[in-house]
């Protein structure tokens, strides 16, 4: 066929149909709609961070970084005394975050340890031990448990749990870091259990077969092959649980006693950073030093959780790259 002839056909060809203006507009509107939806979360997060940092850093102009750590002041006999106290509304306000940081970690650490033991155990049970039918019933139950409003868990711990441990252990304060960390565990165990189960379940069955084929017992297979192979997933679940423990508010607000004690005693009342923001933000006068200092606490909280997530991400990436243990 001649080339000229070939191109002459174009006019009558069924391929010559041009795209309608209407169609093109509709397509691009749809595209924009989903793009906005997709980036909405990102936009809001950025706006929140901008606001948080803008307000929080004002605290540094008014109060100063060192004052967030301690205050040197004369005691009754005139000697200079270094105090670590959170008394933002006192006539002589003290803004040390140290007792709040201690309160946060004194509730979050024990909660994470308890939850790691029980949560990883539950994850192993779900993935490796439980018969599949029971697992199908149990896993949604555990995940459902994670969905209980924390105020309900806090209330139960406040009314039932605290009294139980009060009678059992006779702590110095009825509401204390220990009671709060038990309450936090209720939230974190399901998170760790569920994510651990996911991590273990994703290990290919081939590896189990290889291990059994070499004469390994179930426990040897779990401890020497499955858990190490899932190490990154399991540690990520623990770090995420820890992050949640630090950020959790309602339970610690209700159960930790809220006295900003500078203590390492788990049976004393403590006050966490989150509980401080929640309890004081409602009553603070906007624009005061106290107001900005609460935002500064927010920055500290954000920084901690940010680095926790970063570390989790680095562990996971390194494991993925090396893929060895």
């Amino acid at each position, binding site marked *: 066929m001649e080339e000229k002839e070939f191109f002459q056909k174009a006019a009558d060809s069924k391929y010559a149909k041009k795209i309608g203006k209407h169609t093109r507009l509709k397509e691009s509107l749809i595209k924009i709609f989903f793009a906005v939806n997709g980036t909405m979360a990102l936009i809001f997060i950025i706006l929140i961070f901008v606001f948080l940092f803008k307000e929080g850093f004002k605290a540094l102009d008014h109060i100063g970084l060192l004052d967030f750590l301690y205050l040197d002041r004369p005691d009754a006999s005139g000697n200079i005394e270094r105090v670590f106290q959170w008394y933002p509304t006192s006539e002589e306000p003290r803004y040390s975050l140290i007792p709040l940081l201690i309160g946060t970690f004194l509730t979050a650490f024990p909660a994470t340890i308890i939850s790691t033991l029980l949560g990883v155990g539950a994850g192993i049970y779900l993935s490796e031990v439980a018969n599949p039918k029971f697992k199908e019933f149990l896993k949604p139950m555990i995940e459902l448990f994670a969905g209980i409003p924390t105020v309900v868990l806090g209330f139960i711990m406040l009314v039932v749990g605290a009294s139980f441990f009060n009678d059992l252990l006779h702590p110095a304060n009825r509401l204390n870091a220990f009671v709060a960390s038990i309450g936090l565990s209720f939230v974190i165990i399901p998170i760790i259990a569920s994510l651990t189960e996911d991590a273990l379940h994703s290990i290919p069955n081939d*590896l189990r077969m*290889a291990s059994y084929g070499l*004469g390994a017992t179930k426990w040897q297979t779990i401890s020497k092959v499955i858990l190490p192979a899932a190490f990154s997933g399991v540690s990520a679940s623990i770090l995420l649980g820890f992050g949640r423990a630090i950020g959790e508010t309602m339970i610690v607000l209700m159960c930790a006693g809220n006295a900003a004690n500078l203590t390492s005693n788990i049976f004393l009342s403590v006050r966490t950073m989150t509980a401080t923001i929640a309890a004081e933000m409602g009553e603070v006068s906007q624009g005061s030093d106290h107001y900005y200092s609460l935002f500064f606490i927010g920055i500290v909280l954000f920084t901690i959780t940010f680095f926790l997530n970063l570390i989790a991400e680095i562990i996971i990436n390194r494991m993925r790259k090396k893929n060895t243990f």
Partner: protein
Amino acid sequence: MKEIKIVVKDLNLFYGDKQALKKITMDIPDKRVTAFIGPSGCGKSTFLRVINRMNDLIDHVKIDGEIYIDGVNIYDKSLDIVNLRKNVGMVFQKSNLFPKTVYENIVYGPRINGIKDKKVLDEIVERTLNQAAIWEEVKDRLNENALSLSGGQQQRLCIARALAVEPEIILMDEPASALDPLSTAKIEELIHDLKKQYTIVIVTHNMQQAARVSDQTAFFYLGELIEYDRTTTIFTNPSKKQTEDYVTGRFG
């Protein structure tokens, strides 16, 4: 005929209601290569897994009949399955190395059997890698991730790993089906060497492979053992029409 290692009597196996193996009866000789051939779904792999009780790990599997190794009924209720699997090694269709180093893969089996002495473990690594004809290729890479080896090397490493627990019987489930011809040739050569010391049972889809490596061949079809004889007889002068049709490529 050599001494008999494995005796199978009237073995039936069910997946739920479906019968996958029907009245299998056969003797497998010691220090020989026995090949199982047959079309997909004929039960040959299932039967292989009966020998080291790997089917126990699958739900809803029911087995009746008897299997003896060296006169011991391996489906005896009081039998230690872990001990059985130590003595009946297995190489799988797809390399299933642990995501550990070459060295750690080999010593996994010995370690769970309680060997802790580094010198003994080192010896085992060198011996088994030599047996698996891969020592020269990996001796400088013992501390590298085993998954960085080539497919053929990985499969030979799997064989070395199985040898490290010193089994008497080695079950191979299509060990070369995912490999290129060169790697396949190496595996076949290896099987030839190993039969001096081990009883080998190999499932294969590749009839030329069965003809090359095995001393006797069993042909399975729809869960039944159709014919079992010397490999040369099966491939040149089978007594059943079905066997002849299969080995000549008329179906399957």
